[in-house]
């Protein structure tokens, strides 16, 4: 199992678009991926759960991936969180 801490880079925090990007990315991998913030842990493919985390800009979330492709999944998830990827729109 891989565990890493990632900072939410997007000034809008973990908002709807970023949650969609995360959920789409997590769905591409076979491993089990979770994201934790404060006392809550949700599956990285659970869109509503991700939104409910309400992680803000600059907050640290814990990403855990367990499975065959855990390294690639962790990298991809970290990229989404670090780049403020908003699924097509350029970030300001």
């Amino acid at each position, binding site marked *: 199992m891989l565990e890493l801490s990632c900072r939410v880079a997007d000034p*809008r925090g973990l908002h*709807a678009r970023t949650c969609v990007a995360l*959920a*789409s990315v997590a769905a591409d991998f076979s491993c089990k991926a979770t994201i934790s913030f404060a006392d809550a842990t949700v599956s990285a493919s659970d*869109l*509503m759960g991700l*939104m*409910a985390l309400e992680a803000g800009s600059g907050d640290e979330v814990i990403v855990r991936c367990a499975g065959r492709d855990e390294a690639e999944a962790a990298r991809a998830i970290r990229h989404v969180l670090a780049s403020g990827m908003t699924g097509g*729109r350029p970030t300001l």
Partner: protein
Amino acid sequence: MGLFDMFKKPAAPAKPEDIKVESVPANIYAPVSGEAMNMEDVPDPVFASGAMGKGIVIKPEQGIIYSPVDGEVTVTTGTLHALGIMGDNGVEILIHVGIDTVEMKGDGFTGFVGRGDTVKAGQALMTFDMDKIAKAGKEDHVIMVVTNTDDLPNVSPVSPQHINAGEVAVVVTQ
């Protein structure tokens, strides 16, 4: 009316009246009155792609959101612009008011429910100030997505038309 009324902050909008809806499990009701349009036509590539699930978009004509189903509030946001509801009919619904309205940080949004609250279809959940959204340069489309579309055999939004809050917006089969 007292001498000091002029120093009081304007009161938050009062909770609007609920709409009476005779709900059935197969229906998801429009959360707001306005022009319903296809999800693919919403001016936001992420929602329009359907990556979040099937649903419907309504260009609102008034700033009140009513519950689309009987169920429980699962997600609220500090910025008050989005709500998640788990329907008693097994449908998971995300209501997102406007596009990029998270940036308004709650200004112009008033919520009347919290996480864990039981809600009934037609119950007034929140209000939003359409003028403030316009002044902030944001679109005010109300986006309603069935986020567990993949778990349901069929999710069918109605075709583009004028729709009133409380009318059938999406039909699902379990």
